[in-house]
């Protein structure tokens, strides 16, 4: 699995300043920083934003992203970006999701043998 970490600066005013200051001095009961997760699936051409999560560092964020958002799909690439480094216009991106991992068939509804007369499930 190839992984990339990028920190993106868009040059907005105050961008770099806030980026520098924030990871210092975490009060003990605060959350780990928030990261945005982008994933390119096997068939996908581009990385897509799939959601966010909390992690103490980039390495942990990538691993969490794998556990949370891909549940083991092989052949994917993950980007994580600390959320504070993202500056955005208003997105209206369509929801994206990924199929559960191939070898975890019990995540698929069809894994369960149920009678045909059972409707609406």
């Amino acid at each position, binding site marked *: 699995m190839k992984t990339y970490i990028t920190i993106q600066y868009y040059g907005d005013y105050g961008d770099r300043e806030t980026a520098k200051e924030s990871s210092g001095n975490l009060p003990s009961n605060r959350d*780990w920083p928030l990261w945005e997760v982008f994933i390119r699936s096997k068939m996908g051409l581009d990385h897509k934003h799939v959601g966010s*999560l*909390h*992690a*103490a560092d980039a*390495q*942990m964020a990538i*691993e*969490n992203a794998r*556990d*949370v958002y891909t*549940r*083991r799909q092989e052949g994917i690439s993950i980007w994580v970006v600390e959320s504070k480094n993202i500056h955005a216009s208003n997105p209206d991106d369509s929801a994206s999701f990924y199929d559960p991992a191939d*070898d*975890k068939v019990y995540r698929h509804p069809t894994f369960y043998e149920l009678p045909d007369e059972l409707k609406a499930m």
Partner: protein
Amino acid sequence: MFLLSLQMADDALLLGHRNSEWTGHGPNLEQDIAISNIALDLIGQARNFYQYAAFQFNENRTAYEGLINSPAFQQVAENLDEDDLAYLRDANEFRNHLLVELNKGDWAFTITRQFFISLYQQHLYSDLQKSSDRQIAAIAEKSLKEVNYHVRWSGEWVIRLGDGTEESHRRMRSAIDQLWQYTGELFIPADYQEKAVQLGILVNPGTYRESWMAKVRAAFDQAGLVIPESGWTQKGGKQGIHTEHLGYLLAELQYLQRSYPGSSW
């Protein structure tokens, strides 16, 4: 190779079971999900090895006569399946390393144990991929992908906790102190493992020790942790002599199958 498969299955099942005790109780959501994933991987591995063990047993029942004597197991008349092996054997019929059956402990204990076992499994499965037993080789190949990730994940946590705060460092040292005496058993082959070595199915696990130790040392160096002086080695698990922890674990794990014999679930 029935016992060999059983041994690997027992290791995977019990560690998976211990890790699953974290599900819903992890230090935060993300890590709750991470440790549950590892539990799932391990239970998946256990199922593969149990299925293969059951297959071998069914093929040649007479050869394994007398090996498993628990009354519940004796009542299984037809072909064995994975669940008969997991749910109907008594504690002294489990062949796992003692390391995997110990209570889950704190996060430092869980991480350290995972790191020790995953590193061991990484060596084991790398070799077994080339085993002359093709079914075992196939299971090993699939499992190795998962185990490589477990090594990476737990190794990073070892470093984080060792080099984190004073408290995390202290907890890591205490976990290592508690666990170290159980690591030696990983490298002492049981009789059925020796037999498998002779048949070219297994590489003698004793040969993993040096490289295993080097990898532990590398991680510990980065974490500011020290490998304890070699002391006494606790062993016996692979022969069916266990710690007190296993009885409680099995009482819970097996309770439904034992209370309602012969039922489907």
